């Protein structure tokens, strides 16, 4: 009975999607805004990576909302797990020597790679979200290897607040100097240089720090509670 109802529901949803989407042409431009970005983004923002110029400059407000959603998700996990008691140190399993030695060697490189990804967000693929996730996976590795390592949850919180504050401060400074929220008030510099594209690298570094500390905080919360 339940399976039949489920099948009917899936069919209804599928047919409604097909009815709505069958008239949308596949692979054709419906609006011209994409072509505008491809033709003008490099001159207007100075960022070589057009994806970054869309994410941070043209659609920067959406990114602020996205970061806020992630923050609320981390906050929710922290709230749910707040009353759960911590696992005692002897219940935690230790890992093998190969994993320990490997992590000891790899951890700095993983963190460095994450920082590289978000510092070069305006030049190469990747950016704050990707770099932050790489940094968080580095912290995940350390928690798996050394379970007795106590979390410095407050430090993650501080880093997260710092990232959010820098993002909003830069955005409001843009409002002050150019009249637009997230307006680019710094010189855009030479294309393909590390110090170019005005406020885009600054904001992406802030996003990287914020996302990295948030995801690492989520992982730490999950691992250290019973």
């Amino acid at each position, binding site marked *: 009975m339940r399976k039949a109802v489920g099948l009917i529901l899936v069919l209804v949803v599928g047919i409604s999607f097909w009815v709505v989407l069958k008239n949308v042409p596949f692979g054709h431009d419906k609006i011209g805004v994409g072509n505008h970005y491809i033709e003008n983004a490099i001159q207007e923002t100075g960022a070589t*990576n057009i*994806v*970054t110029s869309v994410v941070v400059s043209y659609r920067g407000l959406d990114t602020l909302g996205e970061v806020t959603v992630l923050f609320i998700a981390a906050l929710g996990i922290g709230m749910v797990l707040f009353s759960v008691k911590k696992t005692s140190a002897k219940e935690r399993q230790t890992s093998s020597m190969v994993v320990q030695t490997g992590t000891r060697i790899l951890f700095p490189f993983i963190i460095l790679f994450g920082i590289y*990804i978000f510092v070069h967000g305006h030049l190469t*693929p*990747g*950016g704050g*979200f*990707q770099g932050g*996730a*790489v940094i*968080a*996976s580095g912290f*995940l590795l350390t928690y798996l290897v050394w379970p007795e390592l106590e979390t410095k949850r407050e430090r993650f919180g501080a880093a997260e607040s710092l990232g959010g504050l820098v993002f909003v401060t830069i955005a409001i400074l843009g409002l002050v100097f150019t009249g637009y929220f997230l307006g680019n008030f710094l010189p855009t510099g030479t294309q393909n240089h590390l110090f170019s594209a005005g406020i885009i690298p600054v904001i992406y570094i802030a996003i990287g720090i914020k996302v990295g500390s948030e*995801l690492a905080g*989520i*992982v730490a919360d*999950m*691992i250290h*509670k*019973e």
Partner: protein
Amino acid sequence: MVVIQAVLILMMIVAGVATSMLKDLISAVIACAAVSLLASMLFYFLDAPDVAMAEAAIGAGLTTAVFVIAVRKTRSKEE
């Protein structure tokens, strides 16, 4: 190139069905990670390296880890 993409999509469908069919939750989580990893390769072939990086790092890496931790701390079999 089209062949590679078709193979990737077929493997994604297989892994997705396996995710919903498997009774052992750890196996289901690994199948789910396989969907993410294959999706990230597909994004790379479709010239979207930014999305591919995000999918590989978050979908295949962190989400899987969080799921595995959650499954290990609760029941590991579906009823």
